[in-house]
């Protein structure tokens, strides 16, 4: 009954989306006054999709095995949190989450929007409905999450015991990482719809930029946090100490982020100067397009990745069709209406606008490189049949230097004034530059054999850490707007993350060996004793657990890494034992037994590696502060703006 309710809600929502779209078309062609109606429909549509998702959650929470999706992805023996999180740990469920966020975002846009003109808003809501409609169709036709189990079929295949959630995903990180990412990806749809709406109604201006900004900021913050969380999750779950692999699906999450970062900064130019209209609209379209490309890549099976969902070319074709229609329509609109986007006078060379244009350019180039690198093997194989691999060596070599150049510019940009910078900005940067050079000298003395990228990374990180604070020091920091604090913290976070990455690359110590209980192994400043190896068990797994005692001076730290064995589905996972200290992390893994009587042990000492994710969190936090700052400022001044509001 619950499943059927969810399905019915989904159908109703789809119907409303269709209605919303029709009304939008009518409104644009004949100037009908449908603003209120369309807003109401959008809100109801959002509510209905939320109901549908809630029904799916309920079905998973109760492990209702009569629903095929629950049967294939859950198990009565699982802990409760993973029963619930399993809702989105599969293709259909995560697609429903995607659509729910899409339609709820539309509902909020309808409910909260005050700045955009009614006509543009209706157009935007219509675009949002069009997006939702395609994905509703995909769900209802090709990926029904509420389908009941075909018992005859199940009995025949003998698969009576439900399969269970992939053990790699039975982890608290699963509860946090995908929904946060989806909120980010799909939050960008609002920017897409507003851009499409503005192009349709010919109202690309500063007002639009100010309306789009909170949405882009919000989605960007969530994407930043989601990617950071995903990186940390991979780090502690996969058992080898890596945190970014340039895997196609990781790249699929990075591309919308890069586009959104460029969009965020471009919007500022549009809002402040009414310039960069074409770039901003194009970036808004590209950002959500990248989200859709990511969805397609993960679910179509065309790229090999540890992340990929079940491979299904039929579903891939459906998604590709949606992608072609939506992005094609948006690009066509841009091509046709682009001619009417009048750009103003050129910018002065030393000005914030120019800084942001160059920032845009570099971010777009990095985006292009990641895009090309991810899809290049596919293109080459299509054209010549040759198979080649593109991975970390390429991306690090190419994106690394560009990122460093960007990081240098991040220190300069916020110091520049709009229109024309008359003060000697570069003098202000003397101290940061000196600090950077000092850091460079220290690295040469302390570690002469460090490779060039980590060395430059530490140099630039030091410079940027100092430079990013400068905007606060011009005036009384306590009187600086919250948005400025947000910008400073976010830029500082970049320096922190960069420092962490460079430290990890330059100073990690690794020890792999086979030792017997009672023997010790040294890694970095640590001496680690393997005290014992014992069996253990949990709710749905058995394990082998090592007792390690690590000492560095006086104190002894106990670490207990495990190898876990699941039976449903049969898999083996590594549970690394990680201990965090003020100056780094000790990362320990227990491997297989050796015929000589010993055990494989893998140890890493990673100085300051946590700076990577601390930096990511700071970047997200800074963005959140900026968002709050702007929303509060808007609230306080709303009485002034009521007069300017369009009817």
């Amino acid at each position, binding site marked *: 009954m619950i499943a059927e309710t969810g399905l019915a809600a989904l159908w109703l929502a789809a119907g409303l989306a269709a209605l919303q779209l029709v009304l939008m078309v009518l409104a644009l062609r004949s100037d009908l006054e449908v603003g209120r109606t369309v807003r109401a429909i959008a809100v109801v549509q959002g509510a209905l999709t939320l109901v549908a998702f809630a029904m799916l959650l309920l079905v998973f929470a109760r492990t209702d095995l009569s629903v095929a999706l629950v049967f294939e992805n859950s198990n009565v023996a699982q802990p409760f949190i993973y029963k619930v999180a399993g809702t989105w740990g599969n293709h259909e469920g995560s697609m429903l989450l995607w659509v729910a966020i899409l339609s709820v975002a539309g509902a909020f846009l309808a409910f909260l929007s005050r700045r955009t003109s009614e006509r543009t808003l209706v157009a935007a809501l219509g675009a949002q409905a069009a997006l939702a409609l395609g994905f509703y169709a995909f769900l209802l036709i090709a990926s029904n999450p509420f389908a009941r189990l075909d018992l005859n079929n199940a009995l025949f295949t003998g698969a009576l015991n439900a399969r269970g959630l992939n053990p790699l995903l039975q982890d608290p990180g699963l509860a946090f990482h995908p929904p946060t990412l989806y909120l980010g990806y799909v939050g960008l749809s609002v920017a897409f719809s507003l851009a499409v709406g503005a192009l349709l109604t010919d109202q690309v201006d500063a007002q639009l930029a100010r309306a789009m900004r909170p949405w882009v900021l919000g989605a960007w913050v969530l994407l930043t946090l989601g990617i950071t969380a995903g990186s940390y999750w991979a780090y502690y779950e996969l058992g080898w100490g890596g945190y970014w692999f340039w895997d196609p699906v990781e790249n699929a999450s990075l591309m919308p982020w890069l586009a959104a970062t460029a969009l965020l900064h471009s919007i500022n130019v549009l809002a402040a100067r009414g310039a960069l209209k*074409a770039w901003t609209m*194009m970036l808004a379209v590209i950002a959500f397009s990248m989200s859709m490309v990511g969805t*397609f890549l993960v679910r*179509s*099976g*065309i*790229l*090999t990745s540890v992340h990929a969902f079940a491979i299904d*070319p039929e579903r*891939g*074709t459906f998604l*590709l069709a949606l*992608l*072609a229609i939506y*992005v*094609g329509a948006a*690009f*066509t609109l*841009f*091509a*046709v209406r*682009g*001619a009417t*986007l009048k750009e103003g006078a050129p910018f002065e060379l030393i000005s914030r606008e120019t800084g942001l244009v160059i920032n845009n350019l570099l971010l777009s180039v990095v985006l292009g490189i990641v895009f090309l690198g991810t*899809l290049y093997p*596919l*293109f080459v194989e*299509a054209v010549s049949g040759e*198979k080649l691999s593109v991975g970390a060596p390429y991306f690090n070599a190419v994106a690394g230097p560009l990122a460093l150049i960007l990081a240098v510019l991040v220190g300069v940009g916020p110091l520049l004034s709009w229109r024309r910078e008359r003060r000697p900005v570069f003098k202000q940067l003397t101290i940061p530059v000196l600090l950077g050079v000092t850091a460079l000298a220290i690295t040469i003395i302390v570690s002469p054999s460090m490779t060039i990228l980590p060395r430059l990374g530490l140099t630039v990180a030091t410079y940027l850490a100092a430079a990013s604070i400068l905007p606060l020091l011009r005036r009384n920091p306590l009187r600086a707007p919250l948005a400025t604090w947000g910008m400073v913290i976010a830029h500082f976070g970049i320096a922190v993350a960069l420092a962490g990455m460079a430290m990890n690359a330059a100073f990690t110590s690794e020890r792999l060996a086979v030792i017997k209980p009672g023997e010790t192994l040294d890694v970095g400043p640590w001496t680690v004793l393997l005290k014992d190896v014992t069996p253990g068990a949990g709710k749905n797994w058995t394990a082998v657990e090592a007792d390690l005692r690590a000492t560095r001076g006086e104190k002894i730290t106990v670490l207990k890494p495990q190898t876990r064995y699941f039976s449903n589905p049969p898999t083996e996972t590594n549970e690394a034992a990680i201990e965090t200290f003020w100056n780094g992390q000790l990362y320990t893994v227990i491997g297989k037994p050796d015929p000589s009587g010993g055990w494989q042990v893998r140890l890493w000492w990673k100085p300051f590696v946590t700076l990577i994710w601390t930096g990511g969190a700071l970047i997200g936090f800074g963005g959140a502060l900026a968002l709050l700052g702007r929303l509060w400022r808007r609230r306080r001044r709303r009485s002034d703006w009521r007069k300017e509001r369009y009817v």
Partner: protein
Amino acid sequence: MSPAIRFAPLALLLVFIIALIWRLATPVDTNVPSKLEGKPVPTFDLPAAIPTKGALSTSDLATGRPHLVNIFASWCVPCIGEVKVLQDLKARGVVVEGIAVRDRPEDIAEFLARNGDPYERIGSDAQSRVQIALGSSGVPESFIVDGTGIIRYQHIGPIGAADVPMILRKVEQAR
């Protein structure tokens, strides 16, 4: 903005979509074929896998007549079904040599006793070194080597009953 710049994104999108359509139509082939077809078999010298059968080395493969080198293992599930087909090929005059990857003598002996034994010789490749030297990436795989020791054909996956005519043809061509 010139029309060229305005329509460029659309043009690029078209190229992108066409590439993806191609990819959806031609599914990814996750097999990594060996590049040694047409090249001589790399020199190797493997110990005997079980006491009752001879060891395998490169000199055994350049005797003037073609050989079918089958890379298998007792823990490989599809190999079980392949044994019957290999026995059929042996009955039709094909000389089948075996390379057992990452296997113990007792497991191999049990495997042969249970499923049949089409092999002339079996070499033991405990650390996959010869497998890697041949450019093979999994079990089961088979290589047809001609009389002068040149690799003529690589078959990835188990040889099925339907593949027998093709294999026989290739062995003939390798004479």
